[in-house]
């Protein structure tokens, strides 16, 4: 049924919309379209875009794999410590990303808590590798996924899980065949958030992974460098990043909307 839209809702909605959309339009207008082709077909830019898309996607997958079970734990367990735990999980949101990078060093750096034994045993260290990019992005993106999924889990009707249990499904089966499909839209929304956050990640990446073309220089880092040398090219690069992500999001959304 086409609901009539009350003005008291439509007005702030439109205000919010323009607040988000106008700056993007401004960016499009400011961008140097004359040398657009040259900027966006630059080898370095394409390399950075490719790296960004790959790492952000891997980070998203990692975030889903780690975050969905954690969200489930948060939503379903009644331990009194959960309030604190939940707050702790929200915290990486607040941490300035550069500090997040430093924090990652303390655990996964060559002389970090876990990084040191790893380095001693295998000679491998995470920092300055594409793995570091993925880790940095996962670190900042994970909380978004967890909070989205936890919200969806709390809103879901638990009686379906009861029904599944009486049909002989063990907890893991219930989780994968009932809970997860039911909260599908929530997981999808969380994954989109996580992907987008990973794609835009800058501070933790440049600190923990460095800024090496082809291995750790993602699009945001490329934009940062372009700001140093050619600010208008930086805008053009941002527009490229935006265009690609809008495209991906629209394609994904359509898939999901069709499924749900």
């Amino acid at each position, binding site marked *: 049924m086409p609901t009539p839209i009350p003005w008291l809702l439509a007005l702030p909605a439109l205000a919010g919309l323009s607040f988000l959309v106008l700056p993007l339009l401004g960016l499009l207008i400011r961008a140097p379209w004359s040398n657009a082709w040259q900027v966006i077909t630059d080898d370095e830019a394409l390399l950075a875009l490719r790296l960004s898309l790959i790492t952000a996607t891997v980070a998203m997958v990692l975030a889903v794999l780690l975050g969905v079970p954690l969200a489930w734990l948060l939503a379903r367990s009644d331990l009194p410590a959960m309030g604190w735990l939940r707050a702790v999980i929200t915290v990486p949101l607040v941490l300035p990303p550069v500090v997040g990078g430093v924090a990652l060093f303390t655990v996964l750096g060559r002389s970090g808590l876990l990084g040191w034994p790893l380095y001693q045993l295998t000679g491998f260290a995470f920092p300055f590798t594409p793995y570091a990019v993925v880790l940095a992005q996962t670190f900042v993106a994970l909380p978004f996924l967890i909070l989205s999924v936890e919200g969806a889990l709390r809103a879901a009707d638990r009686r379906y899980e*009861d*029904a*599944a*249990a*009486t*049909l002989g*499904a063990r907890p893991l089966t*219930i989780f994968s*065949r009932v809970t997860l499909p039911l909260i599908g839209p929530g997981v999808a929304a969380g994954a989109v958030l996580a992907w987008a956050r990973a794609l835009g990640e800058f501070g933790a990446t440049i600190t923990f992974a460095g800024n090496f073309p082809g291995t750790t220089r993602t699009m945001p880092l490329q934009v940062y460098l372009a700001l140093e040398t050619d600010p208008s090219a930086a805008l053009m690069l941002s527009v490229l990043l935006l265009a690609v992500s809008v495209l991906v999001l629209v394609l994904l959304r359509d898939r999901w909307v069709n499924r749900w």
Partner: protein
Amino acid sequence: MVTRDRAEGGSGLVAQLELQRGDLRLAVDLRVGPGEVVALLGPNGAGKSTVLRTLAGLLPLQRGCAVLGGLTMEDVDAGIRLEPHHRQVGVVFQDYLLFPHLSVLDNVAFGPRARGHPRAYAQQLAHTMLERVGAAGLASAQPRRISGGQAQRVALARALATEPQLLLLDEPLAALDARTRLTVRGELRRHLADFDGAAIVVTHDPVDAAVLADRLVVIEAGEVVQTGTPSEVARRPRTDYVARLVGLNLLAGTGSAHRVDLPGGGAVHTADSADGDVYVAFRPAAVSIFTTRPDGSPRNLWLGRISGIESHGEGVRVEIDAAPQRGSSILAEVTPAAVAELGLLPGAAVWASVKASDVEVYPR
């Protein structure tokens, strides 16, 4: 009592359920033999759904135990508690709870799949079950696209598909239309007859209960108030709720020979003799109504006032207040023709009579 049964490895269900939930204090002993069907009746909020949830393992007991087919599912003292998925219990929930993301067929195939059967077999089985409840045409439909009654039938098929040892049905026929109800009731009865396990059906409908169940258990406010075969319960109700349910008038009194004295002052004459605390019960159809005091053989004759009239099937039910004693009321069932001839209206004073031979008397 329960202990002895377990020691004998007795089969069927033996349960002693105790728990507090909100305002409800539940303390129910239940035993359902293999192949037996028990109907659980009781007013809203009596704890019927709660009983089913504890048996399914969805709600832990606070005291007591539940043993199914010789296997202890739960025993608070012994610290034993099987998870729901380890119990051989199938449930049809009151609100259907069909998984919205699965097709009807996959809903029914869910149980067999979860219990480890291969996909093809599970779907085959699901098809069979859907046919059995007359919903084969819905196999590929999405649950949210089917009507309430259709959903109920699918839920039934889903629970039957796991071949449980104990089948719990929470008002399985409530949303079915009359025709489907007859069919599904018949099917369900046939399935329950084939079935080795125990079954408990929660229902509000005395006809469903009588058709489906070998024995009725009536609970009120978390406690069992009466059990027995449908005909026993129908003939000798022990609470007001049960009396209304089976459509009888019920009074409690003290018997001496052929007379039962009511606490409010009146008396009921009975054909059978009874002493001590007794109930008396009689059918509304056994009550005759007169607008003037009749002379005749009926030994019971009471003056009252009509407080309600409503049609009931082919007859008319008349509620008479203040008969046979102050503060009570009885129902009479008469023909519409009688209502018209006597000009019965709410508020009118009438004489109600019952033959002593129509009154059943039995100890409290």
